[in-house]
Every structure is written in C-alpha cells, then in structure tokens.
C-alpha cells in the first residue's frame, strides 16, 4: 500500500513537471519576457509618478513577467 502511494506521488510529480515544462517558454521567449519586463520597469521608473503609483505599476510589471514566463 505504502509502495503504491509513493509510486502515485512520484507519478504526480513527473506529470506536473512534464506539463510545466511543456508550457514553459523556449529560450527566445524567455529573452523576450526579460526584455519586456525591463522595458516595463524603465517606463515606470521614468514616469515621474508618486511612489505608491510606481509601486503598483512595478508590481504589475512583475506579474506580467511571471505570466509571460509561464506562457500564459
């Protein structure tokens, strides 16, 4: 029973990894995500906006970067 549970867990992990890697962007896309993230931050830091707004926009840049890297 215990052996079966370990095997099921291992299967689940491999399945998740396979799914994640199949969705992960290739090297070119990662470079694009990095570039877009950098541009987003630079535009934001040069907005002359109050700091709270800058913080919100920088956070949006980070979320956009995360989504880009996950291929969403």
């Amino acid at each position, binding site marked *: 029973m215990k052996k079966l549970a370990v095997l099921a867990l291992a299967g689940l992990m491999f399945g998740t990894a396979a799914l994640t890697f199949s969705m992960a962007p290739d090297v070119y896309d990662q470079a694009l995500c990095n570039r877009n*993230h950098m541009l987003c931050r*630079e535009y934001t830091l040069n907005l002359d906006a109050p700091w709270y707004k800058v*913080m919100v926009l920088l956070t949006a840049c980070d979320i956009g970067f995360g989504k880009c890297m996950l291929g969403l």
Partner: protein
Amino acid sequence: MIAALALALGAAAGAEEGAVKRLKAAEIAGPENAEDAAVLGRPLALALGGDVLFVADAQDCAIKVFSKEGRFLRAFGRKGQGPGELSFPSGVAAAGDRVLVADKFNSRVQVFDRDGRPAGAFAVPFLPDKVHALADGAVLVTGNPTGKRKGEAIVHVFDRSGGPRWEGVEAGFSGDPTYDAFRNMILAVPGEGADFYVVFRSGERRVLHFASTGALIGTITVDERHASRPIDLPFKRGKKRLAGFCWAAAFDRGLLYLSAPAPVDGKDLGPGREISVIDAAGVLRAVVALPRPVHRFVVEGQRIFGVDDEGELRIFEVVR
C-alpha cells in the same frame, strides 16, 4: 543683478553660524514658445551647457534646446536606431562642444555636436538612465538594476571614447524586484572637478563622494534638518517603510541641492517644493522654497531650472 547663491549663503553663514537661511525663489516669466517642437512630452533630464539649456524629451525622442530665459531655440534627434536617432533618451549632458545623450532603449551613449549633428556613440551593456560629463572628459552613466541578480553595478564611468573605466555602487538585492527598485533609486551629480556624488533617493542619509577613477573620496552624512519623509508600501513580502530622502539633486559652486519629497494626497510621496542647500560637510545651510514642486532641476548661481508636474520647463530665481 544675479549674484551667486553660494556667495549669498557664505555671507549669511558668517553672520549666523549654524542657522539655516530661509530663501524663496520666484518664477521668471518665460517667453511664449508657440512652436509644437517646443512642447515637452516627457522631459527626463536637464543640462546646462554654456548659454543654453538642453532637455532630453523621451516621448519625442529628441533633445530640445532652450535659452536660459526659456526661449525655445531648436531640437535635434528623432526616433530610430541609426546615427542621430534616439529611443527614449533619458539623460543629457553638455561636455564642452559635445552633447552626450543616454539613448536608453538603444543601449548606448550617443554624442552630438552642439548644433545637433551626430558625432559618434558608444554601446553600454545595460540600459543607460542618466549621463553626466566629468571635468576630466570621463563620462558618468547610471543605470537601473534589473532586480534579477545580485551584484549589479548602478554607476559606470567611461573614458572620453567610451572605454569602460570603472563601475561600482552595487545594487541591493532582496529577491523582490519592486522593493529593490526603490532601494536602488539613485541620483548622480558631477562635482566641481572630475568628482561626482551619488545620492540614494530613499533610506540612506548619506551622500557618496567619488573621484572619476571610482575611488571613494568620502561619505557625507546629511544634516538631520533635511527631513526624510516616510512612506509605507505593501511589497511582496509585506509592508515596508521607506524613508523618502531626496526627489531630485543638483550641484553648483561647492553646494549640493537636494529636494525632499513631499506628501501627496495624504499617503503618497511626490516631488517637493523645498530644496535643501547642503555644504561639503553635510550641513544644511539654507532651504529654498519654490513656488511649485519640480521633478528635476539644475542650478546655476541664483537660477534654478526645473521641470514641474505637467512637464513644463520652469525657471526660478532666488530672491535675496
């Protein structure tokens, strides 16, 4: 008519040692600039050069040239990647007969003559933010860290031809790129010789003083009377308090000019209307009250050239 503010402060200090002089600046009415090219879209840097003022307009991908009375004279640069073309110019500096431009999204520093003709460029391995000319011909360039790795330098010095000379001031790294962006916001200002100062916009009350070789000349601890403004911001790993120390900075005739941030709508921080005048020992010598807040400014004697919240060029004169 125009006496140097530094001289005025010197006289004041002699009379009242330790006292902070309260000065006011009045706006000088500028000429009407009717041309479309005179309108500033996103003015991100100002530089005085001889008898003119250069303004880097990132939106129009151009450098706009004004007289010291605010009259629009000409513009140069256009959007693109070729010689003389710019992509988001975020910094400008005058270096004798040359004008240096931080050509951000082309990752280079582009050189123009004073009439706007392209005169060379050198690539930099980061997105340049501000550029400054040092007295020995060296070129000081700052960059915003990406926030993705440890050990990124945010201040770089190149020789006249663009060869790397020194890089330093390591960006703080916590793994939260948003928090780190605030911690690593700096302002660099050239001093009188080939030296320069680095001011952190939040947190640090210290100003770092470097030679153009990168050697640290000293650290100036700024007078407590130049008050930091705290702000609590909700970062990824919880709320953190930042001490807003400086919104913009300039240097003129041995004095550092630091504008303190000011509260905006109760909970936010924006540009302030007061400029602290700090001497080489970090002592607050005077406070200049402007009629309106400015995002960035340069100082020459009693004149202050700034950009306000609407992106308008404003010229002020300190009233004695």
